[in-house]
């Protein structure tokens, strides 16, 4: 007999049991649902109530949307097709699609031009928005505004070329003189650019005559409209108001009283006035200051007013960012022997702008939606097209939900895109210093 228990034990398990799946109540959707939706009786009650409300909303809207009619040519026809059913008449969107996007006067055979400008816009914006991309792409970004102007308004190619040339010459003069002092470089550059524009402006008619092949059919500003107008106003005004806003914010902190007070008065005045008032001034009052027919283009007037408005707000946001920087950062820049432009460019602004991103995006989104206000001064943006020509046509008078829902959808797509981009940017720059 061995003194081991080998023979006295009937069975010895040599491997571990295979794991048993957790009980049904502790896994998968049951666990998630129990913990998140039905954790307490009150939660359960609220969940049931919420599901019921969602059901009610969907039961009301989904048949209306899915049963929509897309192919009729007037509201009366659409109602005939629906025959008493309650469903959407989306045919107004297909019937007036081009009007909603381009306004009612932009020549249909030229629609490719704004479309091309729209596609190129992403190419031009990419290197600015995503700084991992090769820096050489910025070259195209610099050209883009002039190209887009030429595509959308048409006319001779020499107008945008002369404008571009002015900036280029101004920049080179600035580079040449900036080692003496920033002010010399800056004003030298401005004077050089103005000289180029003056001389170029005199030469444009002759150049245009010689190279008559290099022109697109001109489209006056009055003929722009639809969502295109909202996009143009939004993009132009945001990209112009950011640099102006930075300049204003810095000017407000300046130690030179003249500059400081000009900036303070500008910002406080603009912030104290409603945008609608400024638009009315742009449309109505300025018409009195210019002789009839020779005034500044209405689109330009509106761009100036909206840019002034949003740059004042952006200046305040950036001032918040500047104020949030510890004083040590300014002193560190000084102790390195950097002059003012260098300190701002290399140390202060990169940090201040990073802090200001959410505020700047907030204003950009608000500004984009504010572009619909131009419908009040009889410009036919998306909302203006809907409220004016489309709802006033005998075919489509009485269609409200479909049109305004479509406008809301377009604006949502753009604004949500902007906000998603800014969240990505914040993550990328890790602004919370964790």
């Amino acid at each position, binding site marked *: 007999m061995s003194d081991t228990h080998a023979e006295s034990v009937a069975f010895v398990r040599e491997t571990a049991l295979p794991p048993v799946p957790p009980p049904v109540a502790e896994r998968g959707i049951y666990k998630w649902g129990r913990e998140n939706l039905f954790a307490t009786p009150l939660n359960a009650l609220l969940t049931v109530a919420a599901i019921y409300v969602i059901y009610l909303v969907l039961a009301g809207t989904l048949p209306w949307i899915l049963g929509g009619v897309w192919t009729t040519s007037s509201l009366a026809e659409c109602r005939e097709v629906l025959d008493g059913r309650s469903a959407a008449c989306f045919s107004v969107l297909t019937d007036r699609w081009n*009007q909603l996007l381009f306004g009612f006067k932009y020549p249909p055979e030229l629609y490719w031009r704004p479309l091309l400008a729209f596609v190129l816009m992403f190419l031009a914006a990419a290197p600015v928005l995503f700084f991992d991309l090769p820096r050489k792409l910025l070259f195209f970004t610099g050209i883009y505004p002039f190209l887009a102007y030429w595509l959308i308004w048409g006319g001779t190619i020499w107008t945008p070329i002369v404008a571009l040339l002015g900036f280029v010459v101004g920049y080179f003069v600035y580079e040449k003189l900036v080692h003496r002092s920033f002010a010399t470089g800056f004003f030298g550059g401005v004077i050089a650019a103005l000289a180029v524009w003056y001389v170029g402006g005199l030469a444009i008619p002759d150049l245009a005559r010689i190279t008559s092949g290099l022109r697109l059919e001109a489209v006056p500003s009055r003929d722009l409209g639809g969502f295109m107008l909202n996009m143009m106003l939004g993009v132009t005004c945001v990209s112009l108001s950011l640099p102006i806003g930075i300049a204003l914010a810095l000017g407000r902190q300046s130690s030179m009283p003249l500059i400081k007070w000009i900036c303070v008065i500008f910002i406080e005045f603009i912030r104290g006035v409603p945008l609608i008032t400024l638009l009315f001034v742009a*449309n109505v009052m300025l018409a*009195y200051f210019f002789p009839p027919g020779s005034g500044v283009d209405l689109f330009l007037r509106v761009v100036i007013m909206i840019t002034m408005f949003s740059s004042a707000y952006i200046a305040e946001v950036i001032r918040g960012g500047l104020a949030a920087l510890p004083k040590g950062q300014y002193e560190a820049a000084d102790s390195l022997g950097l002059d003012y432009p260098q300190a701002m460019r290399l140390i202060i602004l990169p940090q201040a702008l990073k802090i200001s991103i959410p505020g700047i995006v907030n204003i950009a989104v608000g500004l984009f939606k504010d572009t619909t206000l131009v419908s009040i*001064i*009889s410009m036919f943006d998306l909302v203006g097209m809907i409220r*004016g020509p489309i709802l006033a*046509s005998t075919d489509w008078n*009485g269609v409200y939900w479909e049109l305004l829902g479509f406008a809301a959808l377009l604006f949502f797509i753009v604004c949500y895109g902007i906000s998603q981009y800014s969240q990505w940017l914040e993550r990328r720059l890790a602004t919370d210093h964790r």
Partner: protein
Amino acid sequence: MKKSVFLGALTFAGLAAGAAAAGTLEDVQARGKLNCGVTTGLVGFAAPDANGEWNGFDVAVCRAVAAAVLGDPTAVEFIPTTGKTRFTALASGEIDMLARNTTWTFSRDVDLKFDFVGVNYYDGQGFMVPKALGVSSAKDLDGATVCIQTGTTTELNLADFFRANNINYEPVPIETNAEAQQQYLAGACDVYTTDASGLAATRATFENPDEHTLLPEIVSKEPLGPLVRHGDNEWGDVVRWTLNALITAEELGVTSANVGDMASNTTNPEVARLLGTEGNLGEMMGLEADWAKKAIMSEGNYGEIFAKNIGEETPIGLARGLNAQWTDGGLLYSPPFR
């Protein structure tokens, strides 16, 4: 605030009107285009169609003036204006004339310094009720609930009318025409009241327009007409007599179809003077002899324009009513062409 801006605008308007007064007719002829202010969109009166062409009752007046002055009804630059920008656009010289369903009132004529050249549509406040209500006159509306836009003259007119007839009503205040449509169709009110042409246009958009009716009572005066700036009477004459030519053409039976024939073969001396085969009326205004002929050819006479844009054959379906010729019991009465 609103008032002071308004007064400021008026001051500017006065200055600008003085500066821009001389020779609108010459300006238009030199430019080769008429700048005509219209609404941004009102059913039947002015709206661009799917191809971007402006059409409507007010638009036809612009086209007739362009045809009379420039010989081409398409030589018009339509400048859309809102209720807030229309008067400044005219006063500043941005537009040469305004044809935008604008009510002729004392203060607009005198204080704002405009000249209303005539009336192309006699509007007035009316009532719409469902046929099922069984009401045939506004005086039967005792105790009715009435949908009414707040802060408008229609609200005051309504109160006056019901008080004058010693009957009661219950107002349901609403903000916009769109809201009114919804409320009225949902049965929140028995009656909807606003300008009669607006009621007709609103009714035209209903799913079952035949179930609703406009009551015969009109309780306010809203004469709508084209207007020009004060102080340029030559131009005012051109617009006034172009409108009168359209009205007279209907009275004399001249239509866009027979105008060529009438011009050469008429025996009626007034038709001959109107169409320029006799006399020198055109020359007196600085226009071609056949100015009225061209104006009539552009969109037809007044009756044709009415029938095409807002008449009973259209979805809007307005009856001529006050806008019939004086010979048919209406108010249209053009001074003679002599």
